[in-house]
């Protein structure tokens, strides 16, 4: 299972990154490059959709944390969409639920963003 990474930017400037497959030591570089690439292009508000992620390990977590640090350097944000219990568990045991905003859907993330503006 390889990793598929796609992205699009909504009208209100949120860049949604769809990730599909296994994020591990083998595939994480692909996601890392995508995040770096987006930041280089001036996209600082990122929402990573994890609903189709089948496997996530600490290499994947590390890439997400690295992305978060990058966008924060530009006053940006990196939040997640994730409802899968087995994936959430990994954020929970590493304490990263406190570091990432985690939403139930892209819509919910967008609503909250509007509310916060």
């Amino acid at each position: 299972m390889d990793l598929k990474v796609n992205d699009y930017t909504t009208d209100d400037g949120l860049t949604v990154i769809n990730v599909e497959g296994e994020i591990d030591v083998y595939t994480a570089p692909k996601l890392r490059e995508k995040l770096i690439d987006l930041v280089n292009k001036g996209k600082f508000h990122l929402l990573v959709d994890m609903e189709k992620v089948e496997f996530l390990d600490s290499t994947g977590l590390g890439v997400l944390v690295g992305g978060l640090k990058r966008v924060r350097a530009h006053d940006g944000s990196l939040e997640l969409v994730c409802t899968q219990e087995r994936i959430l568990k990994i954020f929970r045991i590493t304490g990263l639920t406190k570091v990432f905003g985690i939403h139930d859907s892209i819509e919910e993330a967008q609503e909250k963003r509007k509310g916060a503006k």
Partner: protein
Amino acid sequence: MATVEVSFSALPVHVRTARLIVTAVARRSGVTETLLDEVRLAVGEACSRAVEAHRRHCPDEPVRLELTADGRRFEAVVSDSVPGDDAAGTAAIDPAPAVPSLPAGEPQYSEDAFGLGLADDTAELGLAVIAGLADDVEIETTPKGVQIRMSWPIGA
């Protein structure tokens, strides 16, 4: 079900092979389906860690994975050949005794530590995952390398 031993060259792709193997052997050994996910993830983490350590220090040496089951417990041991005091990647697990006592629930990353890049250290995240998922973990740092020994109960 006795022992399966695997050595694989230190390549990321083989971490996937290792996950596949550990899952199959654990299933055959009678580890329940609900635990298999944790076994796969924890052993995968240990293998990733070892592969990364080898890539930095001894890319030509293979990483070892040993699987045993005795009817009551399923045990996986991942061994690297990077001596503990010689490996940047193992700094996070030195001193070794500290790790099994990692708060399995929720390690705290203060915004500060986070800002300093602490949480960015994949090795540390990996150990938090292992500590959070393995029913029992032991990490041994020897002059030969680091051994991570994890085990889970067998049966319901």
